[in-house]
């Protein structure tokens, strides 16, 4: 049952994603992409759990590498998007 719920969530999130993006003006495509790219760094949650294991050498090392990479993705992605968007905003005001 839990599996079905998870699949259900997956499908609904997919439809939601389609709906959310359908009408974005092309000016915003780059920030949208880099912003959603940062969200895909959510895999950091999995990396945290893997690298924080108390035992399991190999697994821990892999988790650690995943954690570093995912954190770069998250921190870098959000910051770069913010930089881009603040440029867009500065111009308007």
């Amino acid at each position: 049952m839990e599996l079905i719920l998870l699949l259900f969530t997956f499908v609904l999130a997919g439809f939601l994603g389609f709906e959310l993006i359908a009408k974005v003006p092309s000016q915003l495509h780059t920030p949208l992409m880099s912003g959603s790219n940062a969200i895909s760094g959510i895999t950091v949650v999995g990396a945290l759990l893997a690298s924080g294991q108390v035992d399991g050498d190999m697994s821990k090392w892999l988790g650690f590498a995943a954690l570093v990479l995912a954190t770069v993705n998250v921190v870098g992605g959000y910051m770069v998007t913010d930089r881009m968007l603040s440029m867009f905003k500065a111009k308007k005001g």
Partner: protein
Amino acid sequence: MELFINLAYIAAAILFIYGIKMLGSATTAVRGNRTSSLGMLIAVVATLSRSGLDYSWIIGGLALGGLLGFVAAKRVQMTGMPELVALFNGFGGLASLLVGWAEYEKVKVHGWDTSLAGEWFSAAVIAIAVLIGGITCTGSIIAWLKLSGKMGGAAIVFPGQKVLNALVMLVLVGAGVAFAIGATGASAATMFYVVVGLSLLIGVLAVIPIGGGDMPVVIALLNSFSGLAAAAAGFVINNTVLVVAGCLVGASGLILSAIMCKAMNRTLGNVLFGGFGAAGGGSGKAVEGEMKAISVEDAYFVLEAAQSVVFVPGYGMAVAQAQHVVKELGAILERNGAEVRFGIHPVAGRMPGHMNVLLAEADVPYEQLCEMDAVNAVMPSVDVAIVIGANDVVNPAAVDDEDSPIYGMPIINVFEAKTVFVLKRGQGAGFSGLVNTLFFRDNTRMLYGDAKATVSGLVGQFED
């Protein structure tokens, strides 16, 4: 505690959804991005509150990754944005691959977790996470190499390429299935490593035949993949927030790829497997007439008298870093009484929205940035259209030559303007290898040389 963590994940998912929604409008985009980053923070903090974690590694990893991300984001030039986005994307994909792998190593020690379904299911989702993550990783790295000029941007094609790719993909899927079916068997580990190796290989193979001008589609698609990889990793570790956030990104990236394809009048399959500009191009009508050059001085006299000017920037403007002088020229023309607009083709540049980012960096007023349809509507009344480093997106062959490979692609109709100036380095063809019939038209004048130097020259003329 578990309940609290899950509630926090729901909160994070809501913030992601609102964040993406707000990114869709210029007025709320900044807050949208911050909203989604708050969601990320909540998800991370909630995860850290799980008991029994070894924090020393976690703190080290977060600090190292955070520092690297911070430095990269601070130091990047706006012109270097496409390659940075590609690189971050690759990191995300590799992280998802590693999360899947780490889980498998855990399984080797502790045995399969069958709380969701049988071993086969856990093994299958691990294989999928590795597969998508691997393709995203190496595919993005190749895109990064191409975009940053560390590797030629041209499509790399060789005989038998499609057969080879299909074969690798077939073996890859076969190994994945074998891994899932024989998850508890003796050969499972071997099959797993085959999946890891081949997914990384297929990412390289899939992106090398795609030329530079198709990069907006590829980047958007890889972005989608990085999300799907995260969602797959979510199934691996049975975590809802990964599934939701990953799937949102997967869907949005797919939409963006579809928009890019539409702007090129091509299908996704054609972009990915066409090897456009390497094998196919070159057909189309023979061009008559000759290219007529004009000096900067003469161009100045034409511009001085112009009432309405449209700039059409392309990748060449990014390469020449000419956005600041272009903005300056635009401002001068406006003071001179002309109406100035920028016509931006959806696939101009190497990333969706690439030109908008560059012009925004140069402080070009927002109202002057026009989308393709808006600028095409007024084109017949435009005195001078200035094409800066754009090529295929202004090629009239797309409108009037049915034999041309780009026939049917929506373009910016600069040929309808009274006069067209084309700023161009040399006389060669565009990325697609096509001859641009615009250059041979009666109302077109070529301004040869580096775009930045040429525009500076024009600015200089006005100031004298």
